[in-house]
């Protein structure tokens, strides 16, 4: 079974600063996907970024980038130029790939607060 661990329950950062959220996972699978989702107080789960395990290049989406270390089973999210709208719960999630959509396994989440 796969597990996802987010060891930092809460972080706080000033607007415009850079922050890194950590995530580790455990799996025996070789083909899989990793995701970061954010859940603002409105509670809608929103996709932030996705990484395919077979890709060596780290994924980026505007101010969001990941540091994917497959051997270490580590998948951290870097948010640059933090904005007030980035305040949310952030969840790291794992999906094994077997051809088609599989279940997501989530970590417990991390609360990020961006202060003005």
């Amino acid at each position, binding site marked *: 079974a796969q597990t*996802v661990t987010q060891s930092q329950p809460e972080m706080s950062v000033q607007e415009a600063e850079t922050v890194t959220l950590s995530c580790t996972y455990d799996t025996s699978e070789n083909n899989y*996907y990793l*995701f970061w*989702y954010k859940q603002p107080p*409105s*509670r*809608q*789960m*929103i*996709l932030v970024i*996705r990484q395919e395990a077979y890709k060596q290049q780290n994924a980026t989406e505007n101010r969001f980038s990941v540091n994917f270390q497959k051997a270490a089973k580590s998948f951290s999210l870097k948010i640059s130029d933090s904005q007030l709208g980035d305040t949310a719960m952030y*969840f790291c*999630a794992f*999906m094994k*790939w*077997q*051809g*088609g*959509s*599989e*279940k*997501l*396994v*989530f*970590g*417990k*989440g991390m609360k990020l607060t961006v202060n003005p």
Partner: protein
Amino acid sequence: DAGVTQSPTHLIKTRGQQVTLRCSPKSGHDTVSWYQQALGQGPQFIFQYYEEEERQRGNFPDRFSGHQFPNYSSELNVNALLLGDSALYLCASSLGAGDADTQYFGPGTRLTVL
């Protein structure tokens, strides 16, 4: 392009009652997954429907059942409600075949069991 929609937004029930939650997937998606998110926790996978069949199931009792309709919309039914069933129920849609596709979530239904 409409995203994933869920109804109702909030629901209050008493122990022992039954509840039905509804989900309409994002346009073009054929797979619906349901998750339960207890307060302060990450979502837990309940089950997934594809081609009107339950394709995968998480570690939830048989009191949790579902259905998928020919238009790909889905229902989650919970019988004999317990206090511990109070949670946010999230629906996610995706494509069921080919490359593993990203799951897009609806706004959720907040269920309170008294």
